[in-house]
Every structure is written in C-alpha cells, then in structure tokens.
C-alpha cells in the first residue's frame, strides 16, 4: 500500500520555523557565552527578528516559495494557511517583538542578570506562537498557536522572580489565562459538536446547513459563542474579561507589558476574526439568527471604551493607565471588527498597525524612564520636558497618536474604524445600532484625551525642572525613532499599509461593492 504524504508546503512556514530555531539559538547562545555578553544576546534576538522579517518578505513576494508567485496558500495538511491577514499580522507580531526587545536592554542589564537568553528567547517563542496562530486554518492549530503565545508570556510576566509584584502578575495572568483558555476550549468543543469539523471554512459551510435545519442549536451556540468570546476577550483584554490586564501590566516587566498589549492583543484579534468573522459569520446578524454575536461584541466594545477610558483617568501609575488605555483601544478595534464590510477588517488591520507604533513607543518611553528612575508614577514625570526634551516629545507624540490627534497614525486608525461602522450603518438601516458604537467611541475618545494630556501636562507644563536626565541606549533610541517615524509616516502616507489592510477584508470575502 502506497502511503502518500500530503503536500506540506513547508516553505510557507519558513519564517516561523526560522524564528523558532533562532529562539533556541538565543537560549543556547546565552549559555555558551556564559552569560557574559551583556547586549549581544539582545542584539542577536533583534537580528533574528530582522532576518525573520526579511524571510517573511521573501516568502510573501514568492521569492522563497518554489513554484508560486506569492506566499499565499495552504500547507501542512491544510492546517496552515497563509493569507493576507496572516501575513499582515505577522508584520505586526515581528514589529511588536522587535520594539519590545529593543526597549528591554535596560531591564536586562539591571534586573535580569542571569536569564537574558531565556527572556529574549521566550519573547521570540511567543512571537512564533502568534505567527502560527495567524496562519492557523482550523481550531486545533489555532488553539496550539494561542497556547504557544500565552505560555511563554506567563513566564515572562513573572520574570522578576524576587519581585512580589512580578510574581503576582505572573500568577494572575496564569490563572486567568488558563481559566479563560478552558472556557474557550469548552466553547470550541460545542462548536465542534455542532459542525463536526475543526476546519474553519468547512465549519462555516456546515454551520450554515445546521442553521438551516435545526432550530434548537440556539442554546448550544449561545454557550459556545459566549465562552469563546470570553476566552478570546481575555486575550484582547476586553471587558468584562479585562481585569487581569492592569494588574499584570503593572507587575510585569515593562517591555513584556508592551508586548502583551500589542502582540498578544493582535493575536487575539486574529483568533477572533478567524473564529467569528469567518467561521460564525452566519450568526453575526440578529435578523438571521437569534443567537447572534454582533450585538454582543458591540456591547462589549462599548463596555471596553467606557471602562477603559473612564478608569484610566483615575490612574496614578502610568503602566496601569496605559493598560486601561489599551483596553479602550481594544474597544475601538472591535468596532471595526463588527463592521462586516470591506472596511471592517481593513480598519482593524490598520488600527493595530498604527497602535503598535504608538503603544510600543509609549511603553518604550516608560521603560526607559523606569530604568533610570525606578518609578512609574505619572507624577514623577513632572518637568521632564526641560531635562529630557526628546523623550518627552516622543512620549507626547505617542500619547497624542493614541488619543487620535491628526495627522498621527492613531487618528487615521480611528477614522477608518468609525468610517467602517458608519458605512455599514448608512448602507442598511438594520445596522444603525453601529451609530451608537461610533457615538460612544467618539465621546470616550474625548475622555481619553484627558488622561493622555495629563501625562503631557506633567511633562511640559511644570515650571520646575525634573531631577532626572534620561540618556538612551542605542536600541531604545531605535525603538523610539521607529515609533516616531511610524506614527508620523503612516499617518501622513498610509496608502501602502491601507492597501495591505484592505487585502485582509478581501481575503475574508468582503469585497468593495
């Protein structure tokens, strides 16, 4: 009997495989050099990310894929599937990892003397997980990717072993993470029970059939939907599944908090898009199914924007403040997510892209400041503009971008998200509830300015000088500049990114009318 292996198309997975190997190399490099080379480990990790990016580009353009014109297509027994979304998000994962590692040189020099290799390696491994996740084509690989993302992050959150806050952060993250992944799995199991497949495209077809024939799948689906929303909502830090986020961000090393807020969130977005926007699209609409998820996510988005923006106002710790801010930002992203038209997913893609630069940049600035002063209190930024103008200006720019002030990228991102919702709402009166999302989003965007401006106020308006004079390590500077350039450049000349992002919508079948 002839046993024929399916077409693995491992070339498509080349970036992931490369980064995985590189992560292992980083582990061993640190051991081999007997932990002597302080920054070499970090630089090697950065180099790995750059190379991965290069390979990704080559795969994408088809240079490294034999017999194909581009990097799209499925492999590994159809468990692995590269489409525009996967590739787009891989850029974001790599960028977030790059910026997180770039801003962690100070921390590793001061606080993690003995486990630098593990620190960087785990970040890379988590990145690999995210990349797998974004290419997953069915529930099992999606789950594996999700766990590969999360488990290294559990470790990283608790990385300051002797710091009680860090351990607390790790513990909380772990328990809530495992708990919500159990919920997600329970939900997935119902989904499997309903559709009999784990392949998302097949599932979509099967569910459509089931939906047409059996009416009482309602209850099962409710449980499945709600539990999956909870599981992925945890990753996205969406209320009411957000409560771990401020605590974990505050306790864990700052670059890790940054990575959590961007990378992990982007991974959650991919998972959400794959399961809901693709797999469960028939249950989006309340008119077609009584157990829809559209309005549910809408409610959650409203909660996110309100809770995130409102509670952030009262924070005195800048990391907690940024945590709440990222909760709110997730809310804005979800507006794009529930706008199921050609603008929806494109706006999600562009939003997370712009958000990556601004948020990673802001966290990098916070990390730099923390390295120097040991403080994350907003008050301690008082008068910083005089002693360290560059850091203050960059942080201010990042915060303004997060607040959505033009011409920064954050503004265009919000514009796109609201445009998506309004285009959906103006097209059909059934979707006019999206107007409410837009209204809440815009109003809370005004609130958000309040707390962002508070930091700016501390830095700039004070008449007294700050006692701190910040000097930058080279990688930190690179990260800040990267963020700065990204925020400006992609705010003013966003067309290439917008093109890529609109491919995401197209890949999900939302074509321009």
């Amino acid at each position, binding site marked *: 009997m002839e046993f024929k292996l399916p077409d693995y198309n491992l070339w498509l997975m080349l970036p992931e495989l490369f980064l995985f190997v590189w992560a292992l190399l980083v582990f061993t490099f640190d051991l081999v050099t007997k932990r002597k080379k302080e920054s070499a480990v970090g630089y090697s990790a950065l180099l790995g990310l750059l190379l991965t990016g290069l390979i990704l580009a080559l795969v994408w353009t088809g240079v490294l894929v034999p017999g194909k014109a581009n990097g799209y297509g499925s492999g590994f027994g159809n468990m692995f599937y590269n489409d525009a979304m996967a590739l787009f998000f891989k850029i974001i994962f790599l960028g977030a990892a790059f910026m997180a590692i770039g801003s962690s040189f100070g921390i590793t020099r001061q606080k993690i003397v003995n486990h630098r290799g593990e620190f960087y390696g785990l970040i890379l491994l988590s990145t690999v997980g995210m990349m797998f996740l974004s290419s997953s084509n069915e529930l099992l690989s999606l789950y*594996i990717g999700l766990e590969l993302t999360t488990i290294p992050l559990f470790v990283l959150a608790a990385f300051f072993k002797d710091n009680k806050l860090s351990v*607390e952060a790790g513990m909380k993250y772990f328990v809530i993470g*495992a708990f919500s992944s159990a919920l997600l*799995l329970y939900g997935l199991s119902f989904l499997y*029970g309903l559709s009999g497949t784990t392949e998302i495209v097949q599932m979509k077809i099967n569910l459509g059939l089931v939906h047409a024939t059996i009416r009482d799948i309602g209850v099962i689906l409710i449980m499945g939907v709600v539990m999956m929303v909870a599981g992925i909502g945890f990753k996205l830090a969406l209320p009411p599944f957000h409560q771990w986020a401020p605590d974990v961000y505050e306790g864990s090393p700052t670059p890790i908090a940054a990575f959590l807020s961007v990378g992990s969130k982007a991974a959650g977005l991919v998972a959400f898009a794959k399961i809901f926007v693709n797999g469960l699209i028939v249950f989006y609409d309340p008119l077609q199914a009584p157990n829809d998820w559209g309005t549910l996510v809408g409610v959650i988005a409203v909660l996110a924007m309100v809770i995130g923006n409102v509670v952030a106002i009262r924070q005195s710790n800048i990391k907690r403040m940024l945590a709440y801010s990222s909760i709110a930002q997730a809310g804005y992203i979800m507006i794009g997510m529930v706008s199921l038209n050609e603008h929806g997913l494109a706006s999600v893609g562009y939003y997370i892209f712009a958000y990556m630069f601004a948020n990673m940049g802001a966290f990098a600035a916070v990390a730099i400041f923390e390295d120097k002063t040991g403080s994350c209190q907003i008050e301690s930024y008082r008068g910083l503009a005089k002693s360290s103008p560059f850091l203050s200006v960059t942080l201010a720019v990042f915060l303004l971008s997060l607040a959505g002030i033009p011409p920064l990228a954050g503004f265009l991102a919000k514009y796109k998200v609201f445009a998506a919702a309004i285009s959906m709402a103006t097209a059909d009166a059934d979707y006019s509830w999206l107007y409410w999302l837009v209204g809440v989003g815009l109003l809370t965007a005004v609130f958000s300015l309040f707390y962002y401006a508070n930091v700016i106020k501390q830095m700039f308006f004070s008449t007294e000088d700050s006692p701190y004079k910040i000097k930058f390590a080279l990688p930190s500077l690179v990260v800040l500049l990267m963020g700065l350039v990204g925020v400006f450049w992609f705010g003013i000349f966003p067309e290439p990114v917008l093109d890529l992002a609109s491919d995401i919508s197209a890949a999900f079948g939302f074509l321009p009318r």
Partner: protein
Amino acid sequence: MMLPYLALAAILFSIGLFGVLTRRNTIGILMSLELMFNAVNINFVTFNKFIWTDGLVGQMFAIFIVVVAAAEAVVGLAIVLLLYRNWQGIDTDHVSVMKW
C-alpha cells in the same frame, strides 16, 4: 445517548469552575483547572464518538489538550513555587496587592 457523557463533562467543568473560583490554595486552583480541561476532553471525545464518527478529530484535539495542559501545569507550578519563595505560602490572598 450522549446525555450522560455530556452531563458528566458539565459536572466536571462546574466542579472545576467552582474550585477555581473558591479555592484559597493555588495548587487547588491548578487542580481545578485540570478538571476543567478534562471536562472539555470528554466533550470532544463524546462528540466524536456519537455524532461525527468519521475521522478522529475530536480525539486528536483531546490529546493535544492533555499535552498543552501538562505544559501549562508546569509553568503554573513554577509560578506557585515563586509564590512560595516570596511569601512562604501559596495562599491566593498574597497575590491581591495590585488593585484599582
């Protein structure tokens, strides 16, 4: 036909849920989490066995969950160890400093 199995899974899941929510001991929480994962496993296997009988997707899924859960438990126990190192105890009350 399926009901006992699914009910068993639900009961297990609920017990795990209850444990996670109420245990003061972090090891207890870890064990409860394992219960929840296993409830999921039962679900998967049941669906595979009774409804979608062609293919072994559900059972494969269960095996993967077992593996991942093991990895998760390892990390979890390591963190519990850190808990013990920092507070000389593994009570959940220790880890409620950060709030508001």
